[in-house]
């Protein structure tokens, strides 16, 4: 009888504790990214593009080359990077404040041009790093530092669904939404990221993976409540699924 490892830290994930709050899904999503870099043998040719948000320290956890970009501009930075080093693997990792608010223009136009990089979009319905303000993705009724009494459709508009919106653009090869709140969802998220990465590596296509995520700290919940909220409140507003898939043409579910 010997022991065989079933689960361990991926090689591309550095061996250091994270600064994330207890229960925050960012750590898990970092692990999935690292795991897919390992699986596809991409670590040595990867250029990660970090955004501004709780994931700004991407380079502290992923053992790959990283460019830090200004808030919201990761898709523009990645465009510049990938056009210069077109044989490298480039991805951005962005929060919902970053991508769906200040960076709206950059993501839409990078997607529309069909730039050859992959986007990981971590939607936790709030600005985590700055202390829980309302994001474009904040749910109706959700209390936040800047939506006292809860987000109101009247005053603030409805939550914006980026995976669906980007699926409209011709340059997008794959647009999907996943979650990581239970093992089954984690597995699906893993597959989605793999697919997105393959689309870049093998076909030079733009792919977009929206990942529903928690922010226990700013939601004012303990980690378990926060995890439960994903299924209870987020998924009803942000349905999981694939909205565009040029490979299988299975989109529009």
């Amino acid at each position, binding site marked *: 009888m010997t022991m065989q490892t079933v689960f361990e830290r991926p090689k591309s994930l550095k061996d250091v504790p994270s600064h994330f709050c207890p229960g925050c899904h960012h750590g898990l999503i970092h692990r999935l990214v690292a795991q897919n870099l390992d699986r596809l043998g991409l*670590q*040595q*040719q*990867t*250029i990660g*593009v*970090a955004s501004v948000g709780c994931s*700004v320290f991407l*380079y502290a956890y992923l*053992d*790959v*080359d*990283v*460019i*830090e*970009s*200004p808030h919201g*501009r990761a898709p*523009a*930075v*990645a*465009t*510049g*990077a*990938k*056009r*210069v*080093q077109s044989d*490298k*693997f480039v991805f951005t990792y962005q929060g919902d404040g970053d991508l769906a608010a200040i960076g709206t*223009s*950059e993501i*839409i*136009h990078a997607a529309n041009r069909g730039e050859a990089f992959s986007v990981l979009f971590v939607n936790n319905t709030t600005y985590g790093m700055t202390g829980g303000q309302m994001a474009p993705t904040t749910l109706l009724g959700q209390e936040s530092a800047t939506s006292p009494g809860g987000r109101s459709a009247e005053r603030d508009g409805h939550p914006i669904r980026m995976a669906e919106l980007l699926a409209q653009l011709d340059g997008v090869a794959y647009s999907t939404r996943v979650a990581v709140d239970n093992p089954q969802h984690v597995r699906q998220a893993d597959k989605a990221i793999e697919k997105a990465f393959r689309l870049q590596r093998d076909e030079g296509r733009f792919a977009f993976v929206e990942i529903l995520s928690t922010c226990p700290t700013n939601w004012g919940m303990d980690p378990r409540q926060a995890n439960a909220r994903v299924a209870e409140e987020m998924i009803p507003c942000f349905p999981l699924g694939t909205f565009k898939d040029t490979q299988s043409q299975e989109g529009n579910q």
Partner: protein
Amino acid sequence: MSQSTPARVFLKGNEAVCYGAIEAGCRYYFGYPITPQSEIPALMSSELPKHGGQFLQAESEVASINMLLGASACGARAMTSSSSPGISLKQEGISYLAGSELPGLIVNISRSGPGLGGIDASQADYFQAVKGGGHGDYRMIVLAPHSVQEMYDLTMHAFDLSDRYRMPAMLLGDSLVGQMKEAIELRPRPEVELPAKDWIVTGKGERSEQRIVKSLFLGDGELEAHNRHLQAKAEALRANEVMAEEVALDDAELVLVAFGAAARIAKTAVRMARETGLKVGMLRPITLFPFPERHLARLAETARRFLCIELNTGQMVEDVRLAVNGRREVHFYGRPPGTGSLPTPEELYEQIRESY
């Protein structure tokens, strides 16, 4: 455009910038349309592909400067160009370039402001360029051409300085030097030795150490040290890279100080003044940062008076005053930019007479 015997070609200033950039090895251009610099993206879009490069029209000025950031982090010589309002939008990105120690060329063919203003030649972006329109303590290399030839030459030089100091560089032109045409020599790029770019991100490849391009420094004392390092680079520039043209300064009692378009117009005025026997010369800063402080300090010993001329209500004059430090009178004549407001040589000649 690489060739051994320089040809003489009749070009717009904006076009000369493109040929200079390409000769300097710039292969990536990211920009967004704006008058009066439209010839630059137009020419780059047709020329770059011929040299194996890429032209990309971005969705905005903000996107352009950040594409430049990405390209530069990956080691490419890259540039963007715009004009005043567009340059304002690039300020955050410029501060990030500086903070991340990334080279890159920003061309500002500036126009009249504030706001939408107009498209006439202006020097009202001097402060923005030289003192840092973006946040934080940083300096940017700023070169101010006054002829089409210099639009070509200084573009090349800007790339070299920018790489050497790992600092963004700006070519600060205006619609006069951008739109005018002259016959110029497309000189081959001067040979210069530059430090290896051993910091660029390329994917780790054989390396075991990851590389990170960033401007966030949170460790105790880290950011201060980083700022000191940036400051040291600025000091090195001040010590080593100042450029200025001296016009008829030998016996000058009145020293004009002007750059770019204003200097160009003033050259004729100086000639007119000399023809009438006035001992007038001109110091023309070519590098606005680093500023020719030592030139001015030296002139403050021999000349009687200074007259600073700008196409604005008074910006560079502050740097002139700082350099002269109270030892001589510094007069100022400015024409705020706008349609019909470009000063004429005759007008500047009158000013010379008044200040003499």
